């Protein structure tokens, strides 16, 4: 375990807490809608969604707080690693962490959109021609395409975005060399 592992563990805890707060904040809204507007969302359905979100929350906390040691090892790499000060090693790990955080955020948006679409469907279902209105207004090609792109982006980023990280590392090291060379020229 080195400093990079510790940093990864801290960041993973941060990510877990951030998403847990976001998930937790949706639960009261669901219950509030079910109690105040039962025609839009029935209480059993709200309870079902609350239980589902609770399960998601438990899984999230389990992965990011209890299993963070293993996750950090997978991100940084197992075995004895050099300290992050040895320049190149910490950069891909930090970029991967950043990608994973952004991927989770993207997937969070996808889940949010899906639940919103489901809620809208439930609202339109009871109306006359509701199905047609729903398809025309909510299920447009544009929104479906956005949803698909966001989901694909989220999955790619959660997987660590290997190509993107490799490209970024290459570019960053090139830039570092350029700045280093410039400084040497200025000094001499």
């Amino acid at each position: 375990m080195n400093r990079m592992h510790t940093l990864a563990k801290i960041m993973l805890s941060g990510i877990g807490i951030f998403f847990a707060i976001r998930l937790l904040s949706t639960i009261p809204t669901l219950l509030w809608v079910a109690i105040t507007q039962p025609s839009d969302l029935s209480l059993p359905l709200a309870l079902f969604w609350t239980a589902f979100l609770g399960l998601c929350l438990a899984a999230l906390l389990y992965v990011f707080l209890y299993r963070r040691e293993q996750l950090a090892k997978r991100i940084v790499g197992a075995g004895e690693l050099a300290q992050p000060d040895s320049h190149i090693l910490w950069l891909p790990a930090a970029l991967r962490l950043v990608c994973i955080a952004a991927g989770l955020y993207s997937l969070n948006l996808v889940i949010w959109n899906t639940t919103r679409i489901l809620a809208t469907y439930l609202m339109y279902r009871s109306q006359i021609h509701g199905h047609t209105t729903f398809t025309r207004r909510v299920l447009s090609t544009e929104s479906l395409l956005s949803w698909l792109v966001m989901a694909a982006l989220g999955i790619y980023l959660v997987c660590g975005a290997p190509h993107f990280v490799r490209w970024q590392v290459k570019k960053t090291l090139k830039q570092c060399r350029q700045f280093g060379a410039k400084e040497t020229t200025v000094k001499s």
Partner: protein
Amino acid sequence: MTKMQVVAKTILTVLGIHAIVALCGNYPGQYLFATQEISVLSEALFFLAFILGVAFVGYFMVFGNNQLSRKMAGTAEQFVPRDQTDWLVKSLRVGLVFAGLMLLPRSVPILIRTAKLFFLIRPAVSDIIVSKTVPDILRLSYAQWYRTIYEFLKAILAIYLLCGAPYFLRWQMRHSSRTEAATKKTEIADPGATN
């Protein structure tokens, strides 16, 4: 510059970008002027005051954050100059890529709409020229125009940040080394001045 100062600088830059994007997204004028009759002058003054506020945040958090980062992190072990350049470039780039990645998912819909516009622009232009009517896709309210332009600029910013914001990074490096040199000169002249 110390390691902690570099970290503080990166965090300040990321938070500053986030603050600018959030402030511009919540510009109160977009709703205010859509619902109330206000003179163009007051509207322009309001917009100018808002822009000045955003510029103030941008200056202290993104462009001129050297002083603030020094105050936040304090003075500790100094870098070897080569190490400092490496650390600054790498940590700033990681921070900027992070900001870009966080902006990207919300920019996907506007990017798709922009791609769609390429197919719709020809019939829209012919509508304007031939039948002298404004097509539906251009008939937007004040708030909708503001939102569309804001989302489009946000998408461009996200892409620029994902590319590592090369010009901004170059400017930051130049600016940091200049500030560093000035601070060193002050320290040599008056050792107690920076504490």
